[in-house]
Every structure is written in C-alpha cells, then in structure tokens.
C-alpha cells in the first residue's frame, strides 16, 4: 500500500515536471535554444506565489494566475532584451547568456529572500482524501491534475489553433514564415512568454506543498533537461510522458535508496540516455 502511495505521489509530481519541461521543450523545438535559466523561472514562480499569499492572503487560483502573468512578462522581456541578440551570435554567447542569467536570478533571490527554506502559509488546499486506501494530499492531487490539464492545453494550443500553426511555421522556416506574413519576432517572444509562464505556474503549484529556497532552480533545470531529452526534441506529448516517468523514477528511488539519491539517479539516467538513446523514447534515430 505504501508503495502504491509512493507511485501515485511520484506521478502527481511528474505531471508538474511535465508542465515545466514542456516550457523548455517549446523553446528548444522552436529556436534550437536551451534555456539554462528555466529552473530559475520555476523558482521565481514559487516566490511570486509566496509574496502574493503573504501580502494579500489570496488562494491558489489567484497566485497561480499571478505567477503565470508575471513570468509571461519576464519571459517576453528577456527575449527582447537578451535572447534576440544572442541568437545571432556564436554558440558561446547563446549558452553563456542564459547560464549567466540563471546565476543572476538565483543569487538576486538569495539576496532578497535569504537562502532559508520557506513554505507557503496555509492555503485552502489542505487535508488528505482517502482513495481506496491510498491517502492523497489534496494540494498535491490538485497540483498534479492542474499541471496535466495545462500541459494538454499547451499541446492543443500548438496543434489546434492559428497561433500554434504560426509558432510552428516560424520554428519550421523563419524566412518562409515571414513571407506568409508572420512576424517571427512576435512569435518567438510569445514562445518565451508561454515557456516562462508554464515554468511559473509549475513553481506556484509546487510551492503549495513543498518547501523551497532560491537554490531549487538548478535541480528543476536539470530535471527538465532529463525530461526533455527523454521525451524527445520539442515534443509536448513526449514531455508529458517523460515527466510522469521521471516523477515515478524519482519517487521510487527516494523510497528505495533514500531522498538524497533521488536526483543522483535521475541525472545518472540522463547520462545513460545520452549514451543509449539521445533521440528520446519516442523519437526515431
């Protein structure tokens, strides 16, 4: 029974990993660009939730929305101020720009919020429900379901709407998209906004039930790298599947080997994946 509970808990957290990773995979698929500051976007989402709850005492609906809007604006701003220029530069500039940004955001958060772990004050999402003998924390259940729903919504946005087609058109061929009257800059800025917003919501969802500090971003960035590589280049459904799988593996390794090694196992999996199947689970060689 405990094992079943561990599995369900892992899958619920995995759904949140899927949401934050689909933001990373969106940028990767569209612009062939890896955002090393993606984990810091998640961390900022957590602190946006924290500040809003402490200042206004509102519920998860409101602070989740605030994290989404705040991070969307941050993502668009970072695209115009930094990414647009470094995309034209050498590989060195592309990698160092977001790596430096990650340090800047992480340690500015250290400066403002101190390195201490924080938890959100009590929200309306408390208590546990008993589902056929499995005790589920309401906050984790809600976070997992909302994250899975949002990941699917992002997938539908990309595949079923005009905006999604325009985004994919820019990803496919920037020049051709321009000839069709699409403005690549706007689309790429939108992608950065959506990517950061999904990281921000994922952060707010996790902040409800897990303690956090400014240093958590690096772990989330690495987890997202694993999920994106496992799920395959630029694929949101792949990220969903891989996110659930990584959540499950993490929960099981924490259960069998102790919580310290849950990240070690996942990073080890990443290296193994690069050796054996760098195209991901669903990709073709």
């Amino acid at each position, binding site marked *: 029974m405990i094992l079943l509970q561990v599995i369900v808990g892992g899958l619920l957290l995995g759904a949140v990993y899927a949401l934050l990773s689909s933001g990373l995979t969106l940028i*990767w698929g569209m612009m*062939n*660009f*890896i955002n*090393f500051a993606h984990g810091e976007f998640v961390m900022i989402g957590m602190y946006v939730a924290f500040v809003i709850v402490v200042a206004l005492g509102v519920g998860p609906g409101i602070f989740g929305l605030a994290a989404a809007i705040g991070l969307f604006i941050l993502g668009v701003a970072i695209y115009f101020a*930094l990414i647009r*220029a*470094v*995309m*034209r*530069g*050498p*590989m*060195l*500039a*592309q*990698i*160092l*720009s977001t*790596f*430096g*940004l*990650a*340090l*800047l*955001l*992480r*340690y*500015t958060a*250290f*400066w403002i919020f101190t390195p201490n772990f924080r938890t959100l004050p009590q929200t309306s999402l408390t208590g546990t429900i008993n589902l056929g003998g499995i005790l589920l924390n309401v906050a984790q259940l809600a976070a997992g379901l909302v994250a899975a729903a949002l990941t699917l919504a992002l997938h539908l946005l990309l595949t079923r709407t005009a905006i999604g087609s325009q985004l994919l058109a820019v990803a496919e061929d920037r020049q051709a998209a321009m000839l069709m009257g699409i403005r690549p800059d706007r689309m790429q800025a939108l992608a950065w906004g959506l990517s950061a917003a999904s990281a921000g919501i994922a952060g707010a969802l996790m902040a409800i039930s897990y303690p956090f500090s400014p240093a958590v971003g*690096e772990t989330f*960035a*690495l987890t997202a*790298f*694993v999920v994106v*590589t496992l799920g395959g280049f630029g694929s949101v459904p792949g990220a969903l599947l891989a996110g659930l799988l990584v959540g499950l593996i993490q929960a099981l390794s924490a259960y069998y080997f102790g919580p*310290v*090694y849950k*990240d*070690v196992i996942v*990073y*080890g999996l*990443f*290296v193994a994946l*690069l*050796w054996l199947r*760098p195209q991901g689970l669903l990709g073709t060689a």
Partner: protein
Amino acid sequence: MRWAWIALALALLAYPLVFTSPFYQDAGALVLLAAISASAWNVVGGYAGQISVGHAMFYGAGAYLPLLLHQHWHLPPILGVPLAIAVSLALALVVGFPTFRLQGHYFSMATLAVAELIRIVVSNWELLGAAIGLQGPAVSKNWWDLTFRSAVPYYYIFLAVLALLLYVTWHMQESRLGYYLRAIRSGERAARSLGVPVRRYKLFALMLSATFTSLAGSLYAFKTGFVDPESGLGILVSVQMIIIAALGGTGTLLGPLLGAVILVPLQTTTNTLFGGGGAGLTFIVYGGIIVLIARFEPGGLLELWHRLTAPRTRRAPAPRHAA
C-alpha cells in the same frame, strides 16, 4: 612581438621579488592558479567552442584524490596527481563520447548534470569526508609533500605549469589540431563535410582540457591543504573558469591570463570589503558580467582591444561566427 613576450615572462618571474609582502605574493599565486584552470577550460570551451559548465568535476577530482591518498593511506599526496588525471580522463570520455556526436547543447547540459551528480555523491560519501571534506599534510615531512609556508614556492610552481599549458596550447593552435578546432567552432557541418573527424578532435580537446583542469585542482589542494564539496566541486569553481576565460577572450592564448589578472584581485577586494556576505554578491556580479559579455562582447576584452586599436581605414567588420 617577441619583446612583448620576454617582457611578460620577466614581469611574471619578477613579481614575487618586487612585491615582497605575503599578501601580494599569495594574491599572485591565486591569479596564476585561476589562469591555469581558465586556460585549461579555454582549450575545449574557447578553441573547440564546446561550452562546459561543469569543469568543476575535473578540478574536484584533482583536488580530492591527492588529499584522499594522504588522509586515508598516508601516502604522499603527489601520487594522487596521475590518479586524478586518469579519473578526469575517464569522466571526459563518459561526458564527451556520447554528446559530441549530438548538437553542442547536449554537451553543456551533460557537463552540468554530471558535475552536480558528483557533487551530491561526494557530499554524502564518508570516505571522501562528506560535507566536511579532506585535509592535507599539516607540516611538511618531505619536499614531495609540496607543503610550504610561504606562497613563493607555489607561485613558481603555478607559473611553471601555466607556462607549460600555454606552450601546449600555442603548439596546438599552430598545428593541424588547432586548424581543425577552429573549423569545428565556426561551422561543424562544414568542417565535417571537408573531412574533419569532428567527434575525435572535440574529444581530444576535452581530454587535454580535463588533464590540465585536474592538475589545477591538485595544485589548489597542495596550496590550501584542504578541500570540501563547495571549494572543490561547487558551481563557483566552474563559473570562475568560464567568466575568466570569457572576460579576457575565449579561443585566444592570453585571454584567460588577462581575465585572471583583472578578476581575481577584484574578487579578493570585494570579499575583503563585504566579508562573508560578499559571496552572494560575487555571484550576482558574476552572473551580470557573463550576461553582458554574451550580449555585447562575446569575443571578450582582447577582441574589443583589437577592434578599438585597429586602424580605422583598414578595420575589418567584426567577425561573425556561424550560429
């Protein structure tokens, strides 16, 4: 040009004799050490254009193994140096072999993941001192303990290693390998289509880089006689190599040395000014500098200098690297 080289060498040789205060001698040794590790990073990060953000794994191997031999088996720490290089070469293969057939981003992600993995494992491994770390010889019993009270012997050892590394790098730059690496950096597909064995040469650059980074870690361990997960494997270790090389100029012979001469004294000053609270501030400033370099001057100070001093009429357009 030749006179400039001789002047630089003489200035470096004479520095501890001119500045006799232990503070300045120590600072000089630290600058050289930082220049060694940044120059080593530069071999793969600058010349081959493969950006490692986890070079701390090689540095940490270099710092931990000599002290491990000393603390647990009472062997001379220097025996750990070749062992550490062997471990670093193995790590370089584990990271480089699979990722160098993929796009550049995979290598960067893998270095970050493996460095973090090693840091977590070492932080929890009793044999390696876990969170507390390892200690070296307190007093020197033999000369090969490489434990001196003054910073001057370290200064000259570091200078010799730096000279060797710069000689190897210069030699590489002028050889077939150097041309191959430059071709790889400016367009991997084009290089491959012209028959450059891309993966093999990237791997070779990484292994050369790992060897000297490991050596830098060992030198650090000899000088401080102590290593813990933060000082040997922490993210600041990797960040410092990157920022020093990028500030001076990646892919240039003397860029990392220039970066170290500027950045290390600056860091010592801010640490003295702000005390313990300065560490967080250092990261914020470093992050900001890295972003600014990436955004405005990816070639670093040396390229900026060349552009500013080039005669106006003959000024070439700023080199544009292939994305």
